[in-house]
């Protein structure tokens, strides 16, 4: 996890294409410039970055389901609940499940736990559209494979 670069997912553990679910893992870094401001002397992962973490896991799920042919963009956050503080060095288990696979959009339920304890959850809406460029598509495919996404069929 590199907060400054918005690289929120360390590893894609499992993608179930039939069940339309994904499990990912991340570890909050011990140090980050983000913690210098949030908050001095009391470092906590900002809630918006926890939402972003759930969105990225959800995004990789949508990418895998479309065989990396469509790029998901986060457009809606509903019922976002941030249940506990997240400190440096915390291990995160991120899961997401497609609630509805629509035409040009997807509704996803996502959550994060640590040591079995629920940290946050939300319902996320994504618009899916063709990649704006082939370079972007290649970059996302490469990133997905590095993280452990199933190889493209």
């Amino acid at each position, binding site marked *: 996890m590199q907060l400054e670069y918005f690289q929120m997912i360390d590893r894609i553990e499992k993608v179930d294409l039939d069940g339309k679910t994904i499990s990912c893992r991340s570890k909050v870094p011990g140090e980050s410039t983000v913690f210098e401001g949030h908050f001095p002397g009391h470092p906590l992962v900002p809630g918006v970055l926890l939402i972003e973490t759930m969105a990225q896991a959800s995004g990789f799920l949508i990418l895998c389901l479309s065989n990396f042919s469509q790029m998901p963009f986060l*457009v*809606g956050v509903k019922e976002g609940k941030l249940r506990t503080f997240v400190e440096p060095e915390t291990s995160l288990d991120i899961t997401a499940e497609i609630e*509805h696979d*629509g*035409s*040009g*959009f997807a*509704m996803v339920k996502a959550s994060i736990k640590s040591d079995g304890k629920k940290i946050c959850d939300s319902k996320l*809406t994504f*618009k899916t559209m063709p990649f704006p460029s082939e370079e972007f598509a290649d970059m996302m495919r490469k990133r997905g494979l590095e993280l452990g996404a199933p190889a493209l069929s």
Partner: protein
Amino acid sequence: MSSTFDKVADIIADTSEIPREDIKQDSHTIDDLGIDSLDFLDIVFAIDKEFGIKIPLESWTQEVNDGKASTEEYFVMKNLVGKIDDLIAAKSA
């Protein structure tokens, strides 16, 4: 009024802040009711779930953007309901 119309109008009223009585057969969901594209996703989600269909929103939008269809064709209530009825019929055929 068809029952499909009533269900779709109820969904729109529940999903947005539009009074149910303002939703008529001739209402244009975008121009008259002011539903934007993001709110429309919630409405399509609810319609898909209610009727067990998948509204082809991507292709509809593409046709409108390409000038092959007018927004009225898909987004005036009576036409939208007609398209939904067609999708329901195709599903059970």
